């Protein structure tokens, strides 16, 4: 009696201590939730840092600033006049939003650039003009200029004739704006395609695009604008990280609530239908609440902020955490004694929770911060669920055994079915082997898929819109570039020029020359060495005594008094003196101050027409972010596959050590479920996320098989595993409906794995029992 009192008090002490831990965690989580900056929606933080060149935070910062803070909205009406009117309305509306700035005119840009380059107009040549001057003699140059002066299609000439008679400065400035598309200088700048004129509304954000308030203001404004124009026929395209961030947030929130609410409703309904008791309901509620609170707190302890994608993934925790409660409640109803129930389930609960936690924690090795968070979140939540069941469960009072009704389904339908199956053991074995062979064949045929688009969190329509805008604007790709490093700014510029020269030689015939193909800072600021060479060339071919200028003057019957004093070379065109406006057009030019430079490719869709490994200039590195990310995905997929193999062998050894011959049930269940799940969800190929999900399938299969071994397969364990599978299947089933590829694959694999485990494990159990493995 005294021993029982001591045992009860120890039990109560543990329970109280655990409640205190949960309360502390709850308080901590509450403070974090109210602190406003505890959740994160920055989709870029899901991408590993290794994508950017190591040790180059400046470059990363510049690239992110350039691509994060600007956005574009393209508007097309039923005709250009209506399109313009609609675009004007949109500009008016967007200009009222605090925190963003709408760029409406480029006239100031042109004026600043024109003034800046004026003193240097005799030492700057765009590559085509340089080649022309090298090729033609002064007479030909003069004739060509005269012809141009008589042409009705005269060139853009920002400087007066007397200041720039051969329009060298004009050609230089024009080359700064040369892009794939032809922009039209309409009231609001526009660009034309076959479908008509698209008006271009360009905006810049004061803050980062992950600011939820700003996202909402912008989206609300565009939504209101669209509904106000509902009687108009118009199209609207958007581009910019803010739209992707907003959509990512929207999708994550929607999926968190779908999975969370879906799982909760399923759990509540199952508890009320199956157990019909408020104490059971309260027990499961306590387990789920403790699990969630601990998961949140532990994740916040390790990470400053919890990502919304982590929460989306993490909402499957509810389905998993409920599993342990179901096993406990079903067994409790069967025995009527909570302490006995705990001791019967202790081994099974510990083995299954350790295997699942282990499976999740393997994802800590992932280079993806989102997955690392997810593994900490679910592993800590599962540990809390297991502890809560083991500590709070025994607080139930003793009652007379009253097994749940669901067990009858097993005894009257499934048990006879499985028993009949064992009588056709050989046929089942053949079918099983055929399914396995087909599964392996299918997996082999599908191959692997390491496409970076798996990481997309934006919907198809936004991706289409983004693609269309990039096509229309002919923007450059920020995914592939050359990084040039040197000892001094001039060395960097010279290396950049050398790179362009080498690339010109590598490009196949018929392709535009390198300078038209690349987006390089030497288009804004050539090296002093190149400036001097160009100065000498211009002087010799145009402004010398027998140069083109004096020939032209004779033809124009002018004394050309303005050309009597030819300016000296001006050594002051240096990177440090570039006006800010040029850094906005060529953001990579700002890196030169740090003795670095970046050369981008102009066309976002163009395939690489040369092998980057052919470029062998010291200090020049080719960076392919898509390639980097693909190789990271590929490398990690291989790494995780080996881990999976290791985990599988570990489970084989552990199963035999813990359960002897009966361990074969675990091995067969995990092998069969994994192959079937992988085969059914292979899609376009096996991805990293399939493999990661497979770890969970193994964990779940081990859970189920372990409970069938200890305490043993009967109507109680079958009922508990059925309820557990059902709640988890609902959670992962909802996840498999996600629009985000990685969530979709994750959900699909686990869903198929769960269903297969639930169906097959009892059958394997009966087959093995028939063979005397008991």
């Amino acid at each position, binding site marked *: 009696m005294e021993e029982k009192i001591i045992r009860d008090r120890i039990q109560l002490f543990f329970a109280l201590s655990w409640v205190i831990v949960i309360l502390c965690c709850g308080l901590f989580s509450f403070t974090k939730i109210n602190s406003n900056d505890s959740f994160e929606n920055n989709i870029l933080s899901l991408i590993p840092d290794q994508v950017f060149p190591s040790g180059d935070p400046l470059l990363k910062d510049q690239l992110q600033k350039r691509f994060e803070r600007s956005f574009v909205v393209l508007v097309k009406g039923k005709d250009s006049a209506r399109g313009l009117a609609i675009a004007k309305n949109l500009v008016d509306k967007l200009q009222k939003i605090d925190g963003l700035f709408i760029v409406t005119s480029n006239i100031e840009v042109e004026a600043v650039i024109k003034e800046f380059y004026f003193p240097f107009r005799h030492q700057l040549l765009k590559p085509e003009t340089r080649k022309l001057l090298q090729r*033609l003699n002064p007479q030909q140059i003069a004739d060509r200029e005269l012809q141009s002066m008589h042409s009705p*299609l005269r060139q*853009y000439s920002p400087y007066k004739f007397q200041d720039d008679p051969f329009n060298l400065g004009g050609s230089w400035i024009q080359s700064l704006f040369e892009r794939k598309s032809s922009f*039209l*200088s309409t*009231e609001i700048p526009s660009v034309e395609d076959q479908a008509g004129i698209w008006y271009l509304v360009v905006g810049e954000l004061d803050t980062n695009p992950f600011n939820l308030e700003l996202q909402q203001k912008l989206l609300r404004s565009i939504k209101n604008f669209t509904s106000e124009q509902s009687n108009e026929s118009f199209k609207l395209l958007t581009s910019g990280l803010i739209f992707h961030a907003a959509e990512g947030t929207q999708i994550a929130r929607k999926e968190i609530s779908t999975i969370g609410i879906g799982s909760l409703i399923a759990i509540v309904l199952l508890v009320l239908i199956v157990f019909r008791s408020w104490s059971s309901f309260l027990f499961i509620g306590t387990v789920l609440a403790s699990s969630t609170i601990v998961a949140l707190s532990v994740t916040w302890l390790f990470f400053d902020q919890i990502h919304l994608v982590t929460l989306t993934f993490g909402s499957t925790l509810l389905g998993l955490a409920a599993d342990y409660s179901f096993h406990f409640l079903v067994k409790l109803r069967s025995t009527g004694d909570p302490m006995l129930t705990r001791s019967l389930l202790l081994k099974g609960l510990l083995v299954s929770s350790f295997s699942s936690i282990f499976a999740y924690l393997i994802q800590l090795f992932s280079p993806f911060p989102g997955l690392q968070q997810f593994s900490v979140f679910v592993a800590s939540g599962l540990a809390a669920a297991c502890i809560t069941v083991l500590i709070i469960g025994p607080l139930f009072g003793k009652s007379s055994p009253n097994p749940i009704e669901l067990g009858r389904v097993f005894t009257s339908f499934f048990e006879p079915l499985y028993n009949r199956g064992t009588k056709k053991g050989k046929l089942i074995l053949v079918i099983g082997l055929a399914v396995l062979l087909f599964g392996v064949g299918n997996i082999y045929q599908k191959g692997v898929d390491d496409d970076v688009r798996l990481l997309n969190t934006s919907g198809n329509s936004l991706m289409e819109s983004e693609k269309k805008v990039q096509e229309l604007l002919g923007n450059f790709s920020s995914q592939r570039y050359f990084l040039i490093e040197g000892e001094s700014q001039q060395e960097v510029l010279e290396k950049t020029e050398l790179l362009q020269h080498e690339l010109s030689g590598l490009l196949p015939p018929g392709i535009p020359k390198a300078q038209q193909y690349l987006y390089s800072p030497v288009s804004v600021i050539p090296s002093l060495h190149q400036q001097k060479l160009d100065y000498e060339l211009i002087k010799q071919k145009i402004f010398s005594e027998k140069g083109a200028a004096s020939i032209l003057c004779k033809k124009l019957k002018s004394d050309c008094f303005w050309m009597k004093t030819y300016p000296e070379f001006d050594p002051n065109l240096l990177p440090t003196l570039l006006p800010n406006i040029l850094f906005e057009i060529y953001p990579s030019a700002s890196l030169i101050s740090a003795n670095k430079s970046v050369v981008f490719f102009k066309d976002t869709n163009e395939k690489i027409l040369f092998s980057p490994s052919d470029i062998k200039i010291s200090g020049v590195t080719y960076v392919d972010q898509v390639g980097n990310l693909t190789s990271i995905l590929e490398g990690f997929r291989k790494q995780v596959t080996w881990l999976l193999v290791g985990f599988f062998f570990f489970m084989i050894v552990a199963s035999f050590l813990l359960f002897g011959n009966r361990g074969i049930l675990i091995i067969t269940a995990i092998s069969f479920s994994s192959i079937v799940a992988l085969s059914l969800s292979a899609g376009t190929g096996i991805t990293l996320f399939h493999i990661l999900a497979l770890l969970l399938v193994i964990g779940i299969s081990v859970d189920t098989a372990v409970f069938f071994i200890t305490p043993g397969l009967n109507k109680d364990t079958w009922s508990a595993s059925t309820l557990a599978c059902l709640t988890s299947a609902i959670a992962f089933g909802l996840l498999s409906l996600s629009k985000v590829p990685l969530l979709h694959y994750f959900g699909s694999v686990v869903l198929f794995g769960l269903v297969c485990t639930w169906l097959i494990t009892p059958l394997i159990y009966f087959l093995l029992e028939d063979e005397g493995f008991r």
Partner: protein
Amino acid sequence: MKLNPPKVYFFLILFVVCFPTYTFATLQDKIFSKAKDTKSITSLFIQKRQISVLPLPLISKGKFNYHYEEGIVWEIQEPMQSKIIISKEGVQTEDNFAIAETKGSSKLSEILLSLFSGNLETLETYFYVDVKGDTNQWHLLLEPKNNLVAAQIASISIKGKESVESLYILESNGDSSSLVFTSSRINLLEENP
């Protein structure tokens, strides 16, 4: 983000030269409506370009041809020879040095050809259009709608009677160009039965 302003001159020249005068209910509408019925035009032109620092104007002469299906051929015959061909495929310049496709010419040629078909809308995208006079002596004044075009062109004045007779472009830097079209022969499309 720049429209090549001199190219704007050119398409203006091309489009106005196609419009013989008529008696209109709304003069502007009738000028543009007439362009829609134009099949081909053949003209001679004299261009005088005055650059402020040069003592003498640059004078060039030549032939202008437009056909609604084939496009435009602008042929300078004096003081040197060159040819500009504008078709649906793009703009091609032929001179003593090379035959070159003008960059982005495909879109420009679309604009030009749409103007020839009497599409006032395209013109109004860049300019405020003011029409004065009557069908016997009309005067179109074009003024840029935005600063980017205004930085290059101050105004364009087109005068005509039976057809466009002269065109005067005043540039923002004080330089100017005048074009006089003579001996214009205009063929209209046959009316649909």
